[in-house]
Structure formats: C-alpha cells, structure tokens
C-alpha cells in the first residue's frame, strides 16, 4: 500500500528517483511545493538545487546545466512558465533535454490561484518563438504524475526535446496514494560540453538552419508516431465521445462509467500525451458518432481545436465538436452533465 502524497511532492520525489541532477526554479502558487521539497531533498540526495532570481534566470541555469550533461528539471505555473519561454526556445534550438513541470493556474496575466487548464495551447504549440513542439504529458492522478515524470526524462533525452508535464493546480495540491519507482542511476550525457572540445557544438549563427529543420521534422514525425498516449473507454459504440485530460479526464471517465451502467452509449478518450495529440484514438471510434465533446477548465476551450483538427484528418470532418468549459477549480460532475444535456438537446452550438 502506498501512502497519501501531494501531487507536487510526488512529482518532485519522482524526479529525484529518476536521476535528476539539477533543479532551478522560482516559486509560484500552485507549484511551490515542488521547489520547497527540492530545497532540502535535492541536497539530501546529493543533487543541485538553486532558487533563481527569476523564472528566466532559472531557465538559463537549467540550460547551462544541460549543456554540460546534467539531467535537469524546472517547474512553475501560469505566468511563470510564460516568463521562461525565451529560455525554452533557446534550449530547443540547442537540442538540450529538459523536463519542465507546468502546474496550471486559471487565467490570463496574473490569473487566479485556482486550478485551470488555460495553458493547453501554449504548451502544445511550443510557447516561445520558432517552429518547435514540446512533448506534453498530462497526468490525471498522483500515481500517473509520478510515472510520467519518470518517463519524461527518458523521452527528453531520447529525442533531445523538452518534455512538459502539464498538470493543474488541483492535481498539484491534492493527495492520493502512490508508489515510487526505484532509484535510477543516470550518467551525465556523453554528447555534452566537457571542457576538452570532444563534442564541438555549432553556433546557431553559423549552422545550416534548413538542414536542422529537416532533421527536426523527421524527429517530430517519429515522436508523433511513437509517443501518443491515451486511455479510451466505450468509444466503439458511442453516440458521443468526450475528450478531456487531467482532472476533467477523470470526471469524463466517471460520467461514461455511470452512463454505460444505465445503458447510455457514451465514450471517452482521456488524453495523456497532449503533444503529440493521441490522434490514433480516433481509429477505434464508432463511425456513426453524433458528436465530440471536450471538457475543459478554461474560458473558451482549447483542446477542442485539436479534437476538430484530428477529427477532420481521421475522417470525422462532419461530426460536430462541442466544448464544456468550467470556472476555476475542479468541475462538478453535475454541472458537466447539465451542459452535456443541453448539447444533446441541440441548445448549444458546436465550436467546429
């Protein structure tokens, strides 16, 4: 039996066990426990921890540490992740691996301290300047958060690409039982700067950017093919299929579980990878489905754009895509159901 552990703490401990060498960050609600925990735990485990002077400062500290071969982690929330974006883009340009935990708080600008899913588009589209994508993984339980942090470091190094764990304030703050994986010994990367010019790294000023783009495009195709992750229930005969992630993903699973006990044919795709979007999940969906419905803790809905995009690609172009959005916090099942009834009754216009 595992013990009750807070999501933020669980992710921090998972990073230690996954062999993280160095953490740098700047605290912000609702992600601060990651930093607070690292402030003593990293040292105890013989790792490096720096509280930076700013979010951007922290990003360049992990950039520097990655360049000399360290397994690095940073974490923040909402506007804090926005502030990091120059460094995120630079790390991608240098092909440096990094895991970044984004514990989303609701809203634009300062936003609120409450839980939200309003940063889906920023994380899945890269966030900084340039033409890159972060791999984005989103857990819906504390155990899954632990497992995904562990996986994130491996994917980040395999593809030399930033991996974002996109979670919500509610999951960072909630407790659930979890079991940690074993400790992993990770050597410093052999491709890194070592002070002896063993691995000369081309300057961006002189490199052939078009050649690099071809290489990155091929890698992006490989990631898209290999790294789609999702959980689906009931989609084969569903009249409506929900798409959701994180806590709304769990709520959607609960709604479908209840509905199917009553004989109502609903299905759900709970996305675990947000980029690459789990487009393969469409392959199992009932061809006569009446609608796709995203459940998002956001103002206007963001994931619904991806659902519509891949629905079209997968031959569901005529199927209407709706969204059910919720105010900051954890959506109430009863409220989601009310809005879904309105969709079924034709009282809500589709988004796409």
């Amino acid at each position, binding site marked *: 039996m595992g013990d*009750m552990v807070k999501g933020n703490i669980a992710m921090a401990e998972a990073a230690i066990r996954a062999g993280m060498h160095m953490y740098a960050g700047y605290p912000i609600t609702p992600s601060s426990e990651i930093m607070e925990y690292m402030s003593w735990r990293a040292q105890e485990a013989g790792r490096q921890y720096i509280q930076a002077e700013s979010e951007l400062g922290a990003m360049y500290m992990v950039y520097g540490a990655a360049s000399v071969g360290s397994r690095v982690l940073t974490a923040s929330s909402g506007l804090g992740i926005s502030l990091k974006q120059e460094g995120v883009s630079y790390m991608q340009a240098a092909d440096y691996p990094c895991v970044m935990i984004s514990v989303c708080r609701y809203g634009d600008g300062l936003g609120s*301290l*409450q839980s939200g899913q309003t940063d889906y588009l920023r994380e899945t589209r890269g966030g900084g300047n340039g033409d890159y994508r972060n791999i984005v993984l989103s857990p819906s339980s504390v155990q899954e958060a632990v497992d995904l942090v562990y996986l994130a470091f491996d994917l980040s190094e395999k593809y030399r690409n930033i991996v974002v764990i996109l979670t919500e304030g509610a999951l960072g703050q*909630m*407790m*659930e039982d979890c079991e940690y994986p074993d400790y992993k010994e990770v050597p410093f990367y052999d491709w890194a700067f070592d002070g002896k010019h063993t691995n000369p790294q081309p300057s961006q000023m002189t490199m052939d950017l078009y050649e690099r783009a071809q290489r990155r495009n091929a890698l992006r195709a490989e990631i898209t093919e290999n790294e789609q992750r999702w959980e689906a229930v009931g989609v084969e005969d569903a009249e409506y299929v929900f798409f959701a992630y994180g*806590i709304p993903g*769990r709520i959607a699973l609960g709604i479908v579980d209840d509905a199917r006990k009553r004989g109502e044919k609903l299905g759900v795709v709970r996305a675990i990878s947000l980029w690459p979007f789990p487009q393969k999940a469409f392959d199992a969906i009932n061809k006569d489905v009446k609608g796709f419905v995203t459940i998002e803790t956001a103002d206007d809905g963001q994931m619904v754009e991806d659902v519509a995009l891949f629905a079209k690609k997968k031959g569901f172009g005529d199927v209407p895509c709706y969204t059910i959005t919720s105010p900051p916090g*954890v959506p109430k099942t009863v409220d989601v159901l009310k809005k879904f009834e309105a969709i079924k009754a034709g009282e809500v216009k589709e988004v796409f």
Partner: protein
Amino acid sequence: MLKEVVFAGFGGQGVLTAGLILSQVALFSGKKATWMPEYGAAMRGGTANCTVKYSDGRIFSPGQEAPDAIMALNIPSFNRFIKILKPGGIMLIDSDIVTCDTNVRDDVKVVGVPATTIVNELNNPRGLNIVMLGALVKLMGDYSEQEAIDGMNDMFSKKGKNAFEAANTEAFKRGYASV
C-alpha cells in the same frame, strides 16, 4: 461504495489533518482515497476545508460534489456546507463552537459532539480534530474503531510522531463513544 466527506473549520483546528487521517485509514483498510484541499486566497480569511473521498474502486472526480458527511468546526463552515450536504447526509458539529441554529434542513441529520469540553477534560486541546474524527468514523460505519485507530497510528508513526499515539488513541475513543 463511494463516500465523500468534507472537513471544514478555522485554520489551525486540524481539519486538513482530520481529513488526511481518514484518507489514510481508507488506504490502510485496502480502499482507494483522494484528499483535495481548498487552497489559495480562501485560506487567508481564516477558514480551511478539504474533501476526502474513499471507495472500493476507482475514484473518478476527486472534487467536492455532494458530501455524505461534513465535519464543521465553526459557524461559517456550518452555514456554508450545510447547503451542499447530500439528502440523508450527516452534519457533525462541535456543539461547543457551532452554537447557531442548526435546525435548517429537515432532510439531513445534525449531530453535535461537545468536543471542546471533551478535549479540555482530556487536557489535550490539540486533539479536537481527532475526537471529532472518532465520532465521524462511528457515524459513517465504514471502519471499525480498532481499524481506524490502527490506520491513524500507522500514519503518525510513519511521520515520526508516535509520541502522541496514546493521547491520539484516547481522543479518538472518546469521540467514538460520544455518538
């Protein structure tokens, strides 16, 4: 079987810990559990609350929906949460603190425990949350007295706090016997 319990009161009364103990008791008994606090700006006003769910199977929503039971340790918490209590649910109050009119709904059961008086008798003022938890566990009927005490002591022992085991056990038993 899925149960939802809200623990609410002033910050410092131990409502978040009471909720955490119940969730650990659930795990200790082989169930699944979630614990969700209300965090952020709401805490600065001085009130705190958390929602605990436990179940034999997978817990879907970990959020506040319609609680089967509520532990309210101050009047604002009683007034706020009595509205969302499930019909037939249990509102457990410290009757020494929640002195307002509690007869506001006919379809729920309000149970008062003089927990402040009890902890003063025990000379253990910080055990208030545990006295209340003892009463709650009995009213819920999902865990035996011993099962819950073992789960609670297991949690504190893992945190290196077994010095309080005897006092916690005593407080729990007094609460359990009070309803």
